[in-house]
C-alpha cells in the first residue's frame, strides 16, 4: 500500500470482535450486535455505551 488509503466503506460492527485501549469486546456487550440491555465490558468501571 504505497499511497495513503481512502476508506470508502467500513464493514462490521465497529465495536465488536476487537480490542481497544487494552480492553476487548466480548459477545453480549453493547455494540457487538448481541447485547443484552445493561451489559457492557466496562460496566464496573462506570462506562456507558456513549463512552465507547
Amino acid at each position, binding site marked *: 500500500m504505497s499511497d495513503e488509503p481512502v476508506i470508502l466503506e467500513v464493514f462490521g460492527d465497529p465495536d465488536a470482535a476487537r480490542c*481497544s485501549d487494552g480492553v476487548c469486546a466480548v459477545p453480549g456487550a453493547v455494540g457487538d450486535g448481541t447485547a443484552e440491555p445493561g451489559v457492557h465490558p466496562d460496566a464496573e468501571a462506570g462506562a456507558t455505551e456513549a463512552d465507547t
Partner: protein
Amino acid sequence: MTTPITIDIWSDIACPWCYIGKRRLESALETFGQNPGNPPVTVTYRSFELSPDTPVDFAGSEVDFLVEHKHVSPERARAMLDQITGIAKTVGLDYDVDAMQHTNTVRAHQVLHLAKAQGLQREVKERLLHAYFVEGRHVGRIADLAELGAEVGLDPAEVTRVLDADELISAVHDDQDQARRLGIDGVPFHVVDGRYGVSGAQSPETFVQVLEQVVADRAGTDLDDFDEEVAS
C-alpha cells in the same frame, strides 16, 4: 500479471481478537483462492500498540493487568478472558490465559518490521502470537524475541542489534500515525485494497465478500445484493 489485492492489518500481539481474526482471514483467503480467476492477495501487518504504557516485565497475570490498568473487576476480567478463550477454540486456538505474560509489545512490532523487510513477516507474526497466547512465552524481552525470531528464520544477532538500538521504532510510530489519520482506534482493523475497511475479527464470509467486492470493482461491475446484505 494480475495486480494483487492488498490487505493491510493494524494489529497488536497482546490482542486476543487479532489472533482469532488472523485465523478467520486465513480461512477466507483459502476459500477465495479456490477460484483460479481471483487475483492473489498480499497481507501486510501494521503496528498498533493497545497498551503502550505496559512495562516490559509486568508482574502479574492477564487478569491482574485488566484490574490494575483498565479498572475492570477481577470477576469481569476473568469472564471476559474465558469468553474470548472459548471463541478462540472455535478457530482451533488453545489460549492459555493463566500462562500469558503481559508485556510491552513495541519491540515485537520492531521485529515484525525487520521480518517484513526479509519476507518473513507472516512467519514471525504467527510465531509471536502463538508464543504469547498458547505457549505463555515472553514476547517483550530482547533475548526472547531474538530466540523466537531465530526459530522462523531471522538472524538472532540482527534482532538483538536492531532492538538494542530501537532501530525500527520510527516504522512502528509511522504505522500508528497512519492508523490515527484513518480513524482506527481498535484492532484488528483491515484495509482491503486501500479502499475498504473491515473492523474486528469478522467472519470468513465477510472477508470473502469484501474481496469479491474488490474483484467486482475492478471488473467495473456492481454487486447490489452484496451492498444490501453486508454494508451495515
